[in-house]
């Protein structure tokens, strides 16, 4: 359990350390936000492997 919590913390730290605010795996929210802000969407596609 401790190890799982540590992994979650590491993952969270990795996400938080990013210099721009990524929306994770939610295309619909990204499009809605882009329409509201009138800005384009930058998409990073990746895989955990």
């Amino acid at each position, binding site marked *: 359990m401790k190890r799982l919590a540590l992994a979650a913390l590491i993952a969270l730290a990795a996400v938080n350390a990013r210099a721009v605010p990524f929306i994770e795996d939610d295309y619909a929210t990204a499009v809605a936000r882009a329409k509201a802000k009138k800005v384009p969407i930058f*998409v990073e596609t*990746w895989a*955990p492997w």
Partner: protein
Amino acid sequence: MRAYVYTDKSLERYAGQFVWLSVNTESPKNAAFLKRYPIPALPTLLVLNAEGAVTTRYVGGATVPQLTKLLDDSKPRTATVSESDKLLTQADRLAAEGKHGEAVKAYESALAKAAKNWRKYGRTAESMLFSMSIDDQNEPCATRALEIYPRVKGSSSAANVAATGLSCALSLDEKNAKRAELAASLEKATREVFDDPKIAMSHDDRSGLYIALIDARKDAKDEQGATELAKQWAAFLEKAAAEAKTAEQRAVYDSHRLNAYLDLGTPEKAIPMLEQSQRDFPGDYNPPARLAIAYKAMKDYDKALAASERAVVKVYGPRKLTVLSTRADIYMEKGDKEAARATIAMAIEYAKSLPEGQRSERRIASLERRLASIQ
């Protein structure tokens, strides 16, 4: 890029100029996205307008300067755009729809109409060659790479132009009369990029050049040259991993390091790093999946199967098929055909259960052929 590029503070100035979306292609949540925007290689970077239409597409990793250039080039423009800019947008959109044959023609037109100092020339050339390789246009790909190389020489696009061209040349039929000359010339170009200290390159890109050069030496039946390069590759990756500031950065190199050790016939060297990653990231399926490959190469099948079991319970998405295929390989080498068949049958059932966008009929057909071949 996740470990090294998106963490760079210099990107903060772009934060409000785009909405930032990260798409894990293995997650079932993204199946509808993948159906609309097929992704043939990772990472693929896209810029969409607010209606979801592709305006920019780039396949491959980027350094921070390469990414900021891409972002600057992707901002909506009110000023007049050139004919080449319009053709590039059209080509990127076609490539994003998987229409690579049509995309190649549009990229080629964009290059033909480009002003001498057009800043998107290199990226357009890289994208065209990638679409050619996906579309199995290997001879035009190698020929055009060789023609384009002198113009991009010394720039950040030189590595992809030379290495994609080389890969296309090596994919040509052995009987192709131009194969040997194209491969030799493109290997020379790739080596020139590799040796140019002025070209800023991510470790990932440099590692990709090692792979391209090793493939070329193997193709030339120069085992000694290939081994020498593989030794340098392993040393380069070990140094990069040792200099990593975080566990996440260190683990970035695990995959290529494992491949280098496999190339060198020393899979046991991968065990300590993979065990370390397994401890650092207990929820991650990659370390045990890679341990299974390393133990299989060491012919320690019981440890390979145990590692595979740890990976299978964590893995999800299309990657599960790769993990199951490795497990079937382990059973086959162990001489247990019945277990290998059962594993492939399990993989077929899982492949068929994947949602549209992640489900691949080609992959299912390949697994079914494999099942039939195990007597």
